[in-house]
């Protein structure tokens, strides 16, 4: 399937999901939050962060930083950013760097997210992802 780079060797049945990132305690205690529950059971944080959250589109990941301490620590780490980028590249076969930025819009207090793909020569066109008013409706905390 999509990312052979990470899942090429078989997972042993006796071990939990292999970690693509180094096994550091940064994302576990003391920052562990109550584990996510899916139905009647729980998925390990590691599986959720390294295998599920690395598959969430970049613009959505930004908002997920406000979920809990464990997620915030993990999603803002360099390791996660690298793993996420590699995963998206493997999945889309797209090696162009995409940057996301936040800038004031033309009017009043409004602001917007933009995504911009950088070509090897450094040029790129930004497209608007979401304006702040939409974002407020989405996040609604």
């Amino acid at each position, binding site marked *: *399937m*999509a*990312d052979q780079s990470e*899942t090429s060797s*078989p*997972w*042993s*049945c006796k071990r*939990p*999901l292999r970690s693509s990132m180094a096994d550091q305690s940064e994302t576990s205690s003391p920052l562990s*939050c*109550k*584990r*996510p*529950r*899916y*139905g*009647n*059971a729980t*998925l390990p944080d590691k*599986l959720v962060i390294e*295998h*599920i*959250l*690395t*598959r*969430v*589109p970049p613009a*959505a990941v*930004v*908002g*997920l*930083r*406000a*979920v*809990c*301490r464990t*997620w*915030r620590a993990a999603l803002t780490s360099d390791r996660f950013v690298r793993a996420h980028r590699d995963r998206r590249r493997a999945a889309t076969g797209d090696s162009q760097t995409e940057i996301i930025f*936040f800038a004031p819009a033309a009017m009043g*207090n*409004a*602001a917007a997210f933009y995504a911009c793909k950088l070509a090897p020569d450094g040029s790129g066109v930004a497209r608007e992802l979401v304006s*702040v*008013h939409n*974002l*407020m409706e*989405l*996040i*609604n*905390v």
Partner: protein
Amino acid sequence: MAAGKPVVMVTLVSSDGQSFQLLEEAALLSAMVRDTIQIGQGRGPAGIPIRNITGQTLSMVVVYCNKHYTAAAAADGDDAADEEKKVANKKQLREWDEQFINLEQDKLYDILVAANNLGIDGLVDLCCWRFADMMKGKSASEIRVKLGIRDDFTSEQRAQIEKDSPWVWSRTT
């Protein structure tokens, strides 16, 4: 499947005692089955016991293995340089995958855990993409409710988040 090859079946037995017979080659998609057969077990009539996976979930996993084995065997069969057909078959399999994994959260969870325990990389990957898809477009608070995560930020941390990214918490009114 190439002609003349002996047909070897293998039996998987779920935790609640249901038996599933499938081609050994299809079952070999699972690293766990591969390991078991490699050490010379599992070919007997008793089959391979699959602990912690119920018949309901295992039946789905078996469907996945059969489909992917058949697709791979078909792809091997027509090794002619018919690129168009290959692409079409790949697309078809991807569509089948999407339909297959379009499940409720609880079922998806069961299959992810089963695929992980059985070491079926393709299925783990598929489940994770589906989970990621379910998180897309949801706010932090929606995710918390859906996954039962407690908001454990201290007031200082919340203040810091507000300072770093005010759009997460505050509103422009």
